[in-house]
């Protein structure tokens, strides 16, 4: 009799499992549809970025002075539509506007020490940053106009500015897309694997496989292989759409894509391990989602998927810094945008932490996984 080929048996499981995944609506939705939707939404939000200061001009304010004219042509200042004084005050107290401006023309009467104009600026404690920006802009305008008026006055220092263009402009999509790849791997790895293995076990599909000569490990490997292939196809589609439609930065082109796919695989393997744990621990199908969420929800929120972890308060930072997805997202962004290789110390550290996580997860998975 011909020698039994475990590998061939494993591949036939992979093929069947792959077909099963592609026909499962939830797999396609979580791996592909959700990440793409997030990318599209955040991608379009990102296009309109910029700092604006909303300013209301009080009725009766002098608008013929050079300062007002300079403010009008400044792209940062956004004069809001004329409102009544009461409406303006209400807006300021409610935090809907950043400042109220009132420029009064003074009756100088030949007094050289009284400024011709007084600029009254009212801000709120909610608009401190914007208020400061407005103050700076106004002071800048005044000092320029002073210097123009008084040409012979010596000055302590003069300011010369130049502006460089960055090699690569960091767009919102550059932040969002790696996060979404991580999210796709996370949900597919944990939820997908948990449901699949729970069902294979409870519907006795696994038991039927045991009656064939295939070894148990090859069954698991076959399933994992099919999920890996499916997710890699999904990741390639996500990267492709991100690059083609939103200008996602791929510094080294195909090499970068390959690096991102390798990182995706590392992440997916870790998350599949978590899925194995859930499939073994869950007592019935309805406990799978809450159990899986224990693994996915903290990472979804705290790993820098949608906004940087620096946005979180200090006491939350340590939690952010132990989650594996945090390091996956970080490595992905460095590889994609900065073109770092895997040997770069920061990326290397990310990968090592991911490997450490992998060891821990699979140690638990081997102990909790149930075959029947």
């Amino acid at each position, binding site marked *: 009799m011909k020698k039994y080929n475990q590998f061939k048996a494993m591949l036939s*499981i992979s093929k069947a499992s792959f077909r099963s995944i592609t026909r499962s609506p939830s797999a396609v939705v979580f791996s592909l549809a959700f990440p793409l939707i997030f990318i599209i939404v955040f991608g379009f939000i990102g296009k309109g970025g910029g700092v604006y200061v909303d300013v209301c001009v009080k009725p009766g304010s002098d608008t013929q002075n050079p300062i007002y004219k300079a403010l009008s042509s400044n792209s940062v200042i956004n004069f809001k539509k004329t409102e009544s004084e009461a409406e303006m005050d209400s807006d300021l107290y409610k935090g809907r506007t950043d400042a109220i401006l009132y420029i009064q023309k003074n009756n100088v009467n030949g007094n050289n020490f009284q400024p011709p104009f007084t600029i009254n600026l009212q801000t709120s404690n909610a608009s401190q940053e914007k208020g400061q920006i407005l103050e700076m802009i106004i002071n800048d305008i005044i000092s320029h106009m002073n210097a123009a008026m008084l040409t012979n006055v010596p000055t302590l220092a003069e300011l010369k500015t130049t502006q460089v263009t960055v090699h690569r402009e960091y767009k919102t999509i550059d932040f969002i897309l790696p996060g979404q790849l991580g999210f796709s791997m996370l949900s597919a790895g944990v939820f997908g694997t948990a449901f699949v293995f729970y069902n294979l076990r409870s519907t006795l599909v696994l038991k039927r496989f045991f009656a064939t000569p295939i070894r148990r490990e090859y069954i698991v490997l076959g399933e994992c292989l099919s999920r890996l292939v499916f997710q890699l196809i999904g990741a390639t589609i996500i990267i492709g759409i991100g690059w083609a439609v939103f200008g996602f930065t791929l510094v080294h082109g195909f090499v970068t894509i390959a690096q991102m796919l390798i990182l995706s695989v590392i992440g997916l393997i870790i998350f599949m391990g978590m899925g194995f744990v859930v499939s073994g621990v869950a007592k019935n199908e309805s406990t799978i989602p809450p159990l899986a969420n224990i693994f996915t929800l903290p990472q979804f929120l705290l790993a820098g998927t949608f906004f940087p972890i620096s946005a979180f308060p200090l006491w939350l930072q340590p939690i952010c810094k132990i989650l594996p997805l945090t390091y996956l997202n970080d490595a992905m962004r460095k590889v994609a945008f900065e073109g770092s290789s895997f040997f770069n110390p920061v990326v290397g550290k990310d990968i090592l932490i991911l490997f450490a996580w992998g060891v821990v997860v699979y140690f638990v998975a081997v102990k909790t996984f149930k075959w029947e």
Partner: protein
Amino acid sequence: MAFSKPIIISVKDLVKNYGDFQAVKGVSFDVFENEIFGLLGPNGAGKTTSLEIMETLRKKTSGTVLIDGLSVDNDQNAIKKIIGVQLQAAGYYPSLTLLELLNLFSGLYNVEIDKMAMLNKVGLQDKAKSKYKALSGGQKQRFSICTTLINEPKIVFLDEPTTGLDPQARRNLWDLIRDIRNNGTTVVITTHYMDEAENLCDRVAIVESGNIIALDTPDSLIDKLVATGFERKKEVKKANLEDVFLNLTGQEWRDE
């Protein structure tokens, strides 16, 4: 069936304990080549446990079980290559078609098969491109039996193959099982249906609470009982209601 045939399965003093519970209390029997051997008994008698031990799906506590001379303890992979197994209420990847599932099993057994011919054998050729989840109960059972034949096994184990099927489907499945036996395969089935054991099995072992309390051909068992002076309380009719139903509705494969 009067001449002695070679023994293909040998079970001696088989014991299976689940903790304190003794599911199988030391049973011994032999299965001859090319017969339909039945384990008959109520649920919980230990039939499925004994079957699963023979199928190498469960470890025994003690005793010897030899399948075609191979030990269930040491030669599991060799045994798996020569047996076909139909589990009670097992599933398959539900969204795959029957052809795709046959592909899967041909890979698992490392064999090349003529898929349409296999589906023909069980009357499912029209459902080749249907998904498994779209099949009726009877069709699912037929497909299960189909997968047991993929590796041209020497022995086929069927666990309660007609449970939940209507009379037509049961009769047709019996014919299929007889065909399998007539092709040279040995069949071991468990059942709790008396009529199935009587109609289908060449020999029957009656199992109760982990023990075999009788083992013989159905006719011999009945003869022995009658010889003790047993008399049926009601007069035996020449036909029963099931015959009426089958006569009225015909015996073809029925799409449920």
